[in-house]
């Protein structure tokens, strides 16, 4: 069987993009009970 070198020569190896460093999880200070005091991404504020 005859193989073609042309196709393999055209291949270019690309290094994968370095993954973005994942930040360490935040230590959340416990919010005061009751209202959240914040607005959600959909615009709802409570």
């Amino acid at each position: 069987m005859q193989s073609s070198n042309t196709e393999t020569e055209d291949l270019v190896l690309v290094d994968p993009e370095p993954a973005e460093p994942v930040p360490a999880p935040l230590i959340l200070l416990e919010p005061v009970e009751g209202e959240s005091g914040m607005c959600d991404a959909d615009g709802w504020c409570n």
Partner: protein
Amino acid sequence: MSASAFGPAAEPIVVDIWSDVVCPWCYLGNAVFKQAVEQFPHGSSVQVRYHSFQLNPSFPVGEAVLADEYLAQNFKMPKAQLEASHAQLAARGAEAGLDYQFSKTVMINTLDAHRMIHLAKAHGQELPMVDRLFRAEFTEGLNLSDHAVLADLAVELGLDRAEAEKALETKAYEQDIRADLAQARQLGISGVPFFVFDNKRGVSGAQPIEMFRKALDVTWQDRAASPA
């Protein structure tokens, strides 16, 4: 020996704040946090960095509707409930020296307002711009999607009108805004205001001043305890 004698504590505490100019809790959280920094014995060692977050990013650019109408339509909020919620927030705002005028507040797409914050940041005026935009939105009822209004506010802070107008026309700082939003997603932030202390501790929402004081105290202790 005081904490400041340790090397790491000499570095400022960095507080990253994600907020949006149409977020009423962000206005309050911003004011209360500033009071906490004023009370903090090492307040001069606190560096604040604002980051963009967008509530309602799909709101049409350039349009403006009364926020009450928007809330009533989109969340089917009964008028009485809306008024009670406003009254409660206005009372807390007054304690912090804020004058909420909810009947005048308008809902807009805030992308252009965020451009002004990033422009101001480039000129060392980030915090004054954030304060000014909040007051314009919640006390004065200005339309912050109007380029002329935004340029006027920039001029008020000593920035160049032509530069502000160019930033708005050319949609400047898009990459910075997207980076802020991406960072928020990475940190799992789904609402604002959100405060991150030294990339380690988080406070969500406009919490009482004691909570911010605690976050500053603990962060300062972390600094003092970590090896030089």
